[in-house]
């Protein structure tokens, strides 16, 4: 029975079977023309609240000035206690999410212990490193924000990355995508004037996020507004990952945007 030890390393398992995952779409000879920091048309925000971390994103997928799709989901669960929000090339990001989900589970099932939060974060860095060559040519780069509920510390935590895989932990919020540039100052303003996100109720944090997303959409063409579908909102808490209920979303919409009719008549 061929059971070469992988030590729970999913990348090594695939490579051992001749599978090349996360193949960077780098084209030899093509010069870097759209390097790190390139346009990632979207807005994704992760912010803490009293029970954990809230992730919210607009639903627009764009290619240059073309709106490809207005129902995209950019907040995904990597496991029951980890969420990822993505900005950038959707194809590479989805592939990376698929890889990371398998990687975390493969480790847990083969080693009979959960991969630590630190281990998961390092794996995300490694994945970003794999797509770096393409990202530097302007193909396939993406930026993830990782939100996790740290069960040891009993608290939600947020980490953001640069395109090379460097990781930073943030105290209150993390934001990525073209629209995030427009609202980072506003996020900071909310923390200073209305109090830190981690002390807010989910309802209050949601309301602030709706206002900010509306501002992002009004200043950034690549961020979908709230006129279509309601944004995607997911939380990670001590109970795990969950979708925010429609009712809470509709209430937050009303609290944030007043009498405008909520999308879908909700």
């Amino acid at each position, binding site marked *: *029975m*061929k*059971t070469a030890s*992988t030590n729970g390393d*999913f990348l090594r*398992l*695939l490579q051992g*079977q001749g*599978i090349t*995952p996360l193949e960077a779409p780098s084209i030899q000879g093509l010069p870097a023309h759209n390097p790190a920091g390139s346009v990632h048309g979207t807005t994704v925000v992760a912010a803490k609240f009293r029970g954990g971390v809230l992730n919210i994103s607009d639903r627009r997928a764009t290619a240059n000035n073309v709106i490809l799709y207005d129902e995209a989901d950019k907040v995904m*669960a990597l*496991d*029951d206690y980890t969420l990822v929000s993505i900005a950038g090339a959707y194809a590479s990001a989805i592939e990376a999410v*698929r*890889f990371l*989900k*398998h990687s975390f*589970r*493969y480790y847990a*099932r*083969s080693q*009979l212990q959960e991969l630590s939060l630190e281990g998961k974060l390092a794996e995300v860095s490694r994945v970003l490193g794999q797509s770096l060559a393409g990202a530097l040519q302007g193909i396939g780069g993406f930026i993830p924000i990782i939100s996790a509920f740290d069960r040891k510390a009993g608290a939600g935590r947020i980490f953001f990355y640069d395109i090379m895989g460097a990781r930073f932990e943030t105290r209150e919020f993390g934001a990525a995508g073209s629209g995030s540039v427009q609202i980072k100052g506003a996020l900071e303003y909310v923390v200073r004037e209305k109090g830190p996100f981690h002390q807010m109720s989910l309802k209050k944090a949601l309301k602030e996020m709706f206002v900010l997303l509306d501002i992002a959409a009004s200043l950034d063409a690549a961020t979908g507004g709230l006129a279509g579908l309601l944004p995607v909102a997911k939380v990670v808490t001590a109970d*795990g*990952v*969950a979708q925010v209920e429609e009712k809470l979303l509709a209430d937050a919409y009303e609290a944030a945007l007043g009498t405008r009719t909520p999308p879908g008549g909700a």
Partner: protein
Amino acid sequence: MAYTAYDWQQTLAEKADYAESRLHHGLPVVALSYPQGLLLLTLRKNQQKIFEVYDRLVLGALGNPSDLEAVRQFAVDFAHAEGYQRSTEDVSIQRVVSFAVSPVFKRAFSDPRRMPIVLKSLFAQLGETPDEDVLFTLNYDGEFDRHSSAACVAGTAEAQRRALEALEEKPPSNQKAALERALYAWTLGRWEPEGESDNGKPVLPTQAQAKEILEEHLKDGFRVEATVLQRGTLRERKFIRLDRDDLSPFLPKAGAA
């Protein structure tokens, strides 16, 4: 000296005797579907015997621990590589057992120079409904059987049949009923008949006698190991291990994992 067909047959018979004798006193593993999930249950001392293989797949076995470890790792590797290359939905227990694991057992068993894999394994796959659950039992020689809703591996074919009959008697309506039935079936798979009734068949232990058998094992330091693949859960991970609190209401004395 030439190695004849007779020698080969003789070797296989000896290997089968060897495997049977090693497995004879093994503790059964039972699996049972119910509307909310799929339960696997056994008793053990220290070594775990039931494992998550993939999102909806689980493995339990009796036999040599290092053989089990090798089979487990092999199945986990196969399932994850498949799931990543295609989709999680395409990883099925039928493919894991019949295409990946069973041929390895068969090769080890029929090669005269190799030790057989001393293991009786039970693979299970959670479906949308209990009717869609798929279970496989795999013998040390690579032979496998497909079941639905209930399956068991035990030390002998007779013990296995007894436990399976008990499992299939009445479909459980919830986890509580499934646990009660699985524990009873497990004792039947473990029980060794002493006398026979008038019709030549052994008289099966009653529920009360089954509890005594279970109690004896718990006193001897065995613990119940039970896992569930949860049906219809919103959680990413469907596999859970039942803990002491989940199991203690069903046991004569505390003996949960």
